[in-house]
């Protein structure tokens, strides 16, 4: 509906050199940059604790980063005035992993869905009523659920309600933070189909966070891989799944397809001192330089788009290209 106020050249979302430390954890996000075009899906993958959810929270301005910017429609959300930020928040919505804890147990479905409309002062009463009915229909629920409470639904239905709550403000960007991870495979399939349909019909962009590469494969246009707060690889999904460049991405893919024996080393997260390349201590293709020097971000050009990888293995190729 109100999507025409962005220029073709400005991506809907641009995260630029975002860094964030927690009191107990330095560099929870470490200079992360990526772009997301309107109507596209970016799959953000990585193991637990890689910083995926921190990025999501920073984009929503729920966390304030130490450095860097989040540009939404070309404007930095951390410098926005009050009214612009409010509008941006209406246009960026999130769906969390556990619907049972993200829905208020004391609110009926109707109250839950009315809340965002009231908060953003959208429409009059008639509009709100019809919008609620229409949104319920979009997520595949009947009108009769309106007076029920979250505990009266199955997890899959609860997640549909959480999606309806996010959709009701007509967002341009929906962040799904492990939104299908807590669901049964069968329910997960239903929700993934719903998300695909939403994208086709409403042109919503998705930042889809998941540790499950098979799920990412189903719905992402681009894939970004995070590890210990850094972005190690960013590429079109087709390229990523056929020719992953970073050794960590290759390892993730082999775990996901059960091809490689896993090593316990991969689980032991605590190291005293992070090496220059943060993956060096576990990397199977480690070179002496990896301990010494932080790798730069190399761009490999493919016919279907730019493939960025932060790894010394591509040092040489990079110099040859340029």
């Amino acid at each position, binding site marked *: 509906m109100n999507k025409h106020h962005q220029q073709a050249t400005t991506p809907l979302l641009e995260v630029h050199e975002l860094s964030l430390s927690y009191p107990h954890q330095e560099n929870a996000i470490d200079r992360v940059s990526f772009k997301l075009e309107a109507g596209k899906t970016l799959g953000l993958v990585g193991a637990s604790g890689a910083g995926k959810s921190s990025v999501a929270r920073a984009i929503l301005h729920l966390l304030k980063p130490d450095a860097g910017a989040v540009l939404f429609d070309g404007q930095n959300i951390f410098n926005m005035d009050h009214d612009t930020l409010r509008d941006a928040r209406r246009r960026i919505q999130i769906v969390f992993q556990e619907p049972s804890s993200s829905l208020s147990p004391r609110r009926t479905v109707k109250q839950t869905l009315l809340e965002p409309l009231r908060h953003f002062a959208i429409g009059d009463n008639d509009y709100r009523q019809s919008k609620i009915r229409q949104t319920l229909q979009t997520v595949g629920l009947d009108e009769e659920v309106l007076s029920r409470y979250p505990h009266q639904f199955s997890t899959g239905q609860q997640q549909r309600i959480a999606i309806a709550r996010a959709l009701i403000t007509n967002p341009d960007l929906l962040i799904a933070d492990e939104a299908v991870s807590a669901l*049964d495979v069968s329910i997960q*399939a239903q929700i993934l189909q719903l998300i695909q349909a939403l994208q086709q019909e409403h042109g919503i962009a998705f930042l889809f966070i998941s540790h499950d590469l098979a799920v990412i494969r189903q719905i992402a246009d681009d894939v970004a891989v995070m590890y210990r707060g850094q972005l190690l690889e960013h590429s079109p999904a087709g390229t990523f799944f056929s020719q992953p460049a970073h050794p960590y991405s290759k390892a993730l893919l082999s775990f996901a397809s059960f091809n490689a024996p896993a090593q316990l080393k991969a689980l032991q997260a605590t190291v005293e001192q992070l090496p220059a390349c943060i993956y060096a201590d576990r990397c199977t293709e480690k070179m002496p330089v990896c301990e010494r020097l932080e790798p730069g971000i190399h761009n490999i050009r493919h016919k279907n788009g730019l493939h960025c990888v932060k790894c010394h293995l591509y040092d040489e190729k990079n110099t040859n290209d340029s």
Partner: protein
Amino acid sequence: MSAAALNVKDLSVWIETESGRRRIVDNISFSIKSGEALGLVGESGCGKTMTAFAILGTLPATGATIECAAIEINGRDISRLSSSQRRSVLGRDIAMIFQQPGTALDPVFNIGQQITAVHRRHVGGGKDKTRQAMLDSLSQVGFNQPGKIAAAYPHELSGGMRQLAMIAMATVCNPAVLIADEPSTALDSASRALVLQQIKRLQEDHGTAILMVSHDLSVIRQSCQNVMVMYCGRLLEKTDCESLFSHARHPYSAGLISCIPQIDAAKQPRIKAIPGQVPIPSELPSGCHFAPRCGHAIVQCEQSVPGFATDSSHSVACFRPL
């Protein structure tokens, strides 16, 4: 049949609800040989975990009653033991690992104390022997510094490491049967690969009989030779994994397979969800429970219950198998 490590005959579980007694596990029989891994798959609420707890005789729900002809471990019936007799069986002859190692482990004891408690209870033989057994079981699941893990408290370990510690605890007395209830569901892909690999090793090296409970057929396929598909308390199909994936005969099994997102989407069609949802126990349809969601159902399916032969190599409870 004498070779079976676990033999379950005609097991039913009843629970009391406000609207009367409901049978939530409906007359199921199966057996697992030493060194065999059998998968039990189905959606949430279909009775998988109730089956597991019924076998152990530790049903958490009050008012649940178990009916069975026998539950035998290596030929010995454990279904009619007193609670003190049962305590000497649980942990020694049959052990279980749970979905959430974080809640299954006791937060106020370190890992070593929790494992030695099991060994002391069932085997004994003095402090040194017990400590050695504990360290051995930890190194068997792949920890190369078992002493360090033994001194750690559960909150100091990652989810994957906790699950491995729980496997060590479950296997410190080398049980004949291990029940694994969604052991990898809460883990990311690297941890999942590692946990499944350790369970497989137990089965191959120690001849442990494994009952693997999961909603995810891809996990079952990775770790089991044979599989049973359960729906609303009934077994619908039982065969070896390869036959199920190459030629599922029950429409529900085929539906579950088509829900699995494939990494290699170039070759596979996109996921297809099963329409509808699992009925609640008080609203079970008569006849085949799956009939209302089934694309192949005929009138007969709604009227009578299809039989299920337990002796053939590929059993299916369906009037119109695929």
